[in-house]
Every structure is written in C-alpha cells, then in structure tokens.
C-alpha cells in the first residue's frame, strides 16, 4: 500500500505536562485520501496535527515515543525544512497565521523561503490563487479580507509549495456559513486534484460529504476508525464521547431504536433521500405553522431607527427597529459584518447610536452609563480570553461584585452559588489561564451571571467547542430562560438556534431582513439563502421528504412528524 503518512506507536508528552497528550497512536493515511479527525476538546487533535507536520518535535519541547513518517521520512530525524516541502498545515485562527501585508506576499512568503526564481514564484502564485479562487484579492491587505478569504489565502500559501499532504486544524471554526462553504469548496477541489487531506473538524455534516475515513481521537488515543457511514452508526456512543453525529444519522438511529428496524445509516442529505425507506407525514401534524405571535409583555429593549457608523465611515447598522421582551430567547444570526455584534454592543451601551434611539429598561442608552447597564445586562464574548483578566477563578467572579461595592461575605456567597451553577465548584483557587477552553467559557458566563443580570447576551456560545461543552453552555442558558431571564445569542450554529432559541432575527448588511419565531424563520429557506444561512440538516431533510409538512427543528420532532409507510 502506498502511504502518504504513517504514525507508528506514537506518543507525545509536552515538557510542561505530566500527562501524555498522545498515547500509542497508530495511523496510516493513503495517498490521495481525505481523512477526517473528530473528537472532544483536549483529545489531542491539534497535537496530532503538529506531529504530522513535524512541528512536533522540531519546535516543541517534550518526550516522544514511536515515530511519524511523512512519505517514508521520519519527522524526528528529517530537517523541518524538508518536511514542510511535503506537508502543509492550516490553523484555526485565520488572523495569527497571516504573516505579510498582502495576499500576494503571503503566498510568495514560503516560495521566497525556498529560494525559488521569481518567474517560478509568479507561476505558482497564480496557480494557487486560481485553485483557491482568490485571484481578485491579490493586492488586498489582511484587514480587507473576511475570515473565509483569509483561510483560503492560508491554504493557497501551502498549495503554492505544492506539498502532497495538507493538514487543516479546525479551519472553519471561526468562520461564518459563507466562509465555511468557501473553504469546503476549495477542499473538494484539492481532493479532486488527488492530494492527501487530513482535516480536524467539529462540523461532521460537512465532513461527511468529502471524507473517505474518519477517526475519533479520545484522550490521546484513536478510539474509532471507519468509513463515515459505519463511523456515525454508533450515534449513542459518539454523543457520549462529545461528538455531534450528522442529524440524518441521529434520525435513523431514533427510527431504528424505536421501530426495531435495522436501516442503513446515511451521512448526507442526498444519501438519506436515497437510503431511507418510504416515509409519510403523520396526519396529526400535517398542519402549517403560524408566525410569531405579538408580544404581550412590555419590551425591556426598544430600538427605533438605529443607525450606526464607525469612525472610518463604515455604516454598520442601517435603520434597525427591534423590541425584546422579558423572558424571550432570541437568536441573532447572519454573515460576519452583517451588524450582529454592533447591534448587541448597543444593548449594553458599549456603542451609542449615530442616529435613532436605543432604550433599555425604559432608559435611553445615551443617558445611561455602561457600568449601570452592566448590572442588568450581561455580555459574554466569543473568546473567553478577552473577558478573563484575574488570577484565580474566585477573583474573576468577585471582580464585578467588588466594583458594585458589595460586602465580602455577600460576595463570597454569590461567587460560590454561581460557580456551583456553572459546574466550576471547587475551582475557586485555580489559575484562570490553566482552565480548558470549555471551562474558561463557563467562567466567562459565571463572571457575568454573578452580577445578577436580567438579560444575558452570549456571542457564539459554541465556537471551537465540542458537543458536550456547547450543550453545557446552552443547558445553562436554557435554565436561566426558564427563570424568566431574557437570553440573546449571536451564533452561526443553526442547530443550536433550532434546538434552543424561540425567536430569530436575521441580519444582512446592517439591516434586519427577518424577525420571526424559529419555526417560521426556518420555513423560509429562500429568504435565509439571501443571508447565506442554511437551516439545520434535519429541517432540510423534512422539507425534502414532504415540503407541505410542518417545519421540523429537532430529531425528536422529525420522529413525531413522520412515520414509516
């Protein structure tokens, strides 16, 4: 067998860790294969990516056992400069891997490092830009590019080196739906060109369209390895291991377990339409849906004619009108730069309207201090690192309360309560920056929640998190909503929106193009398409099976809506 990569009894332990990050990993990747790697956060996926590209052990201190062969060459004994000619790596953050000042320079950078003649460089740059469809961006600055475009530039910079293997470590985690589809379209092209691809991703539905094989990395070991269809047939186990199987698999799993059938697991919508036996809509649910009912409660947030222009002249919001009532669960969705974050920053007073009015709890934000608003509205950032600045977990939670002037005993009580609520009890004295990403995200929520806000705004609660972490945060928000707290989430994850939110606001180019309840919103795919939003896979499957059926939001709803003929 002709292998591009071989990992033999490989183990790796970082110098600062006592635990092995990878343990006895054995893996062979065929030339031209698309290998997907899934697993919960902290499973060792990124460490494996660094090992496959030689960055471990060449750039990182630690202890190694076994070996990794890149096209037959041992990464331990081969100079890194030789390995990088054979294998490239694209990281999660499009910002930090962009080194130079223009797209063209970025693609030229590795070629200049190789010392290639100028004419060869020009030819390779043009080819790489064509392959990744970024030719029109040649002269652009990094800050002029979207996240998806930056990731395509990162891919192009490695394609120009013409490596046989490309490793991508969560390349679409930070991207909006359009950016994700752009990157996956490029990957499809690279796969068609016969290159070997190894992709770490949480988005299993998209992976299944391209992957030849999937492995599950769990606690540093390969726990499962199979073709997508076989791999995702273990729905229950995968969920326990922190992986979201595609919703079509979950549906078949529910069908099999509740009807005693043994249906083959599809992994994509197309496969589902082919493999599923005849299914009909239950008469009891063959009814249309109703739109969003008028709110009877008073609005706690009232926005009228809101326009906002940044100092550089960018018009971010263009005539927003929105009411949010007590106890609502609202999802704000849309492309990057559609104005979502700018809008929620107006709710907490971080930005003030250029035109129009924003009233929060009956008071204009123009006349209210941000620190005053902060006691009633909590705002959790996408990246918890931007929000955590104290040494210990306890100090982090106590910080806001100290600013409010509360007494030491009251602070202690409140901090203990909130830490128990987010599952961080016993972590009081733990160093904030030693927590895992999921724990840091929960701590960021706790630090806002401890101030007792009536409204919680959470920006991208699921980015870069595995299924269990996402569900942990969403479960917490659900429980807060049951206590009549108002929840606003800003997200690209439509599955979370369908399963948790009750109302959706879709934004595009600074305007609200749709404001409806979740079911009604997802029943308007053509309107959503304008904003590059694709409804959850299960919603699409239901529509495919019966366009007249009610809009389905979850796998359970799918089962209660359809039955086998």
């Amino acid at each position: 067998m002709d292998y591009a990569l071989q990992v033999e009894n490989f183990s790796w332990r970082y110098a600062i860790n006592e635990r092995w990050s990878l343990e006895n990993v054995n893996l062979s990747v065929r030339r031209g294969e698309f290998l997907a790697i899934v697993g919960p956060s902290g499973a060792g996926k990124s460490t494996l990516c660094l090992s496959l590209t030689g960055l471990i052990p060449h750039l990182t201190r630690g202890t190694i056992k076994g070996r990794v062969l890149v096209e037959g060459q041992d990464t331990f004994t081969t100079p890194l400069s030789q390995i990088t000619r054979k294998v490239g790596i694209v990281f999660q953050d499009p910002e930090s891997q962009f080194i130079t000042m223009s797209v063209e320079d970025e693609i030229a950078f590795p070629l200049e490092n190789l010392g290639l003649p100028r004419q060869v460089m020009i030819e390779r740059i043009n080819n790489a830009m064509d392959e990744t469809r970024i030719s029109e961006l040649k002269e652009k600055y990094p800050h002029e590019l979207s996240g998806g475009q930056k990731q395509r530039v990162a891919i192009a910079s490695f394609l120009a080196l013409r490596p046989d293997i490309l490793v991508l470590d969560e390349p679409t985690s930070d991207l909006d739906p359009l950016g994700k589809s752009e990157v996956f379209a490029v990957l499809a092209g690279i796969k068609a060109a016969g290159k070997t691809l190894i992709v770490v991703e949480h988005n299993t539905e998209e992976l299944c369209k391209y992957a030849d094989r999937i492995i599950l990395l769990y606690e540093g070991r390969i726990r499962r390895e199979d073709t997508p269809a076989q791999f995702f047939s273990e729905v229950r186990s995968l969920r326990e291991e922190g992986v979201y199987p595609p919703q079509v698999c979950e549906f078949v799993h529910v069908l099999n377990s509740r009807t005693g059938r043994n249906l083959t697991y599809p992994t994509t919508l197309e496969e589902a339409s082919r493999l599923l036996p005849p299914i009909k809509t239950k008469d009891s649910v063959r009814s249309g849906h109703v739109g969003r009912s008028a709110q009877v409660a008073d609005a706690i947030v009232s926005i009228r004619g809101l326009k906002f222009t940044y100092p550089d002249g960018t018009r971010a919001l263009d005539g927003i009108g929105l009411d949010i009532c007590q106890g609502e669960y609202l999802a704000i969705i849309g492309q990057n730069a559609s104005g979502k974050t700018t809008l929620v920053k107006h709710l907490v007073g971080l930005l003030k309207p250029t035109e129009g009015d924003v009233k929060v709890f009956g008071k204009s934000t123009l006349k209210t201090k941000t620190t005053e608003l902060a006691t009633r509205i909590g705002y959790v950032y996408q990246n918890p690192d931007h929000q955590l600045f104290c040494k210990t977990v306890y100090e982090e939670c106590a910080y806001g309360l100290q600013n409010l002037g509360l007494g030491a005993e009251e602070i202690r009580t409140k901090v203990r309560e909130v830490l128990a609520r987010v599952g961080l009890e016993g972590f009081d004295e733990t160093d904030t920056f030693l927590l895992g990403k999921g724990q840091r995200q929960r701590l960021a929520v706790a630090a806002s929640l401890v101030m007792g806000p009536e409204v919680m705004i959470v920006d991208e609660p699921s980015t870069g998190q595995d299924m269990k972490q996402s569900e942990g945060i969403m479960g917490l928000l659900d429980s807060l909503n049951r206590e009549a707290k108002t929840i606003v989430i800003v997200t690209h994850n439509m599955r979370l929106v369908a399963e948790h939110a009750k109302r959706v606001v879709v934004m595009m180019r600074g305007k609200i193009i749709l404001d409806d309840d979740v079911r009604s919103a997802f029943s308007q795919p053509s309107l959503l398409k304008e904003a590059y939003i694709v409804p959850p896979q299960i919603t699409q499957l239901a529509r495919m099976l019966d366009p007249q059926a009610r809009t389905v939001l979850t796998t359970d709803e799918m089962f209660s809506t359809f039955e086998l003929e």
Partner: protein
Amino acid sequence: MHPLPKIALLLAINLVALFNESPVPFVLLIALIAVAFMIGKVPVTGLSKFVVVVIIASQAVLISYLLGSAIPGKSVYIRYPWGTYVSEMTLLYAATMVMRYTSMLLGSTLILATTSDRDIIYGFATLRVPFTIGLMLTLAFRTTTIFMEDFQKVRDAMILRGTNFFEGSIATRTKRYAHVFTSLVVIALRRVMETTYAMEAKGFSLAKKRTYLHRYDIGTGDIGLTAFLIFSVVAVYLLRYHFRVLAFPGWPLRS
C-alpha cells in the same frame, strides 16, 4: 512615488521645521504642504481629528509662552508677578512655534495619508535593509492592529463588569490597566505560538538564502527628489546655524 522619497520627505519636513525659527519661511512651508495635500488628493474629511490635535497643541504652546517666557521686545503688554512678561516678540515667537508644530503635524499627516505600511516595508527592502528587520516591521504592523482590537475588547469587558477607567487615583487606574495587560499578554502569547508555527511550516529560516518576489526598482526621479530633499535640509541647517538667516528676528536676545 516610490516609498524612499516619501520617507525622505517626512524626515525633511520635520527637520526643516526643527531648524527654522523665522516666521515667514514657516508660512511658505505650510503653504507648500497644503499644495502637496492637494496634489496627493488627500481627503479633507479625514483630517478633522488632526485639526483638533493642531488646535490643542497650538493652545498649549500659546499658553506656555504667554505665561512662562520673557522675550524682550519694544513694548511689554503684561508683566506677571513670577517675573515673566508678554511683549510683541513673545507673540511673534509663540506664533512661530505654533507654525512649527503645525507644519510638523501636517507634514506627518501628509505622509501617513499617502503612504501605507506596505510602502514602508517595500521602501526598506529597496534600501537593502536586512530581510529580518523588514519582517520584524511587517509583524509589528500586523500585530499592532490585532493588539489594539484585543485591547479594546478586554477594556470593554472590564467596563461591563463595572470598571471605571476615568476615576480614581493614578495608582488605582494603573492597577486597572494592569488587569487589561494580563489578558493581553496571554492572548498575545497564544497568537505568537501560532504565528511561529505558521512561519516555520512555511519554511522560514534565517540561515537560508532567500529570493524575492518583488523587484524594488527605484527610478532616477525618485533618487533626484530624495537628493533634493537632503540638499534642502542641509541648506536650511546652514542658513539657520551658519548664516543665521533663518534665526528668529533679534536672536540672540539682548534684554
């Protein structure tokens, strides 16, 4: 225009403004900069914040000379108990100094408005400055923008937790900003790690010989203009310090 004469122009304007002390040449210098603004098609709308800076700086200069200087003249308008006074020469000198700082600010603004950070990087490459220095500058430009965004985010997060950056003693405020920097250091370290990996994965090495995509050719016009600017600075220096033509009228002072 090639970045080299642009960098030279920035230095020339500031050096000429520094050497000169005569009011009339300052009027000419400001007029020349204004013409350059028009030639460079610099949008006037973007200059409002610089006008604010010029006004604030002018006020500071005027106040400091009006209250704290003792420049002899034919007439003394005000005498202060602390020994300083205002004469007609005080007013002229203060106005000259205002023009000095105005021309420096406007000149720098002109260059900033017409020169990108990319121009500066390419300009350095033209001068055969070692690649590593150019790369360090590039990374500095890249990370400054990202750092400022991170700074804003962390600061906003602290405001949302009740931090008031505008109240309290200097020690209290310093402590608050120290919190901001704790976060920033952690974020920066994570970014640096990933940037290092990306650079190494792209075959970066200081030891190896590299080639370059861009040819940084410099035209004779650019060289001529740069030479003219250097000559102008030297000429102004000689006129000021050797021939005393550009010295402030009446210097050295005789009380």
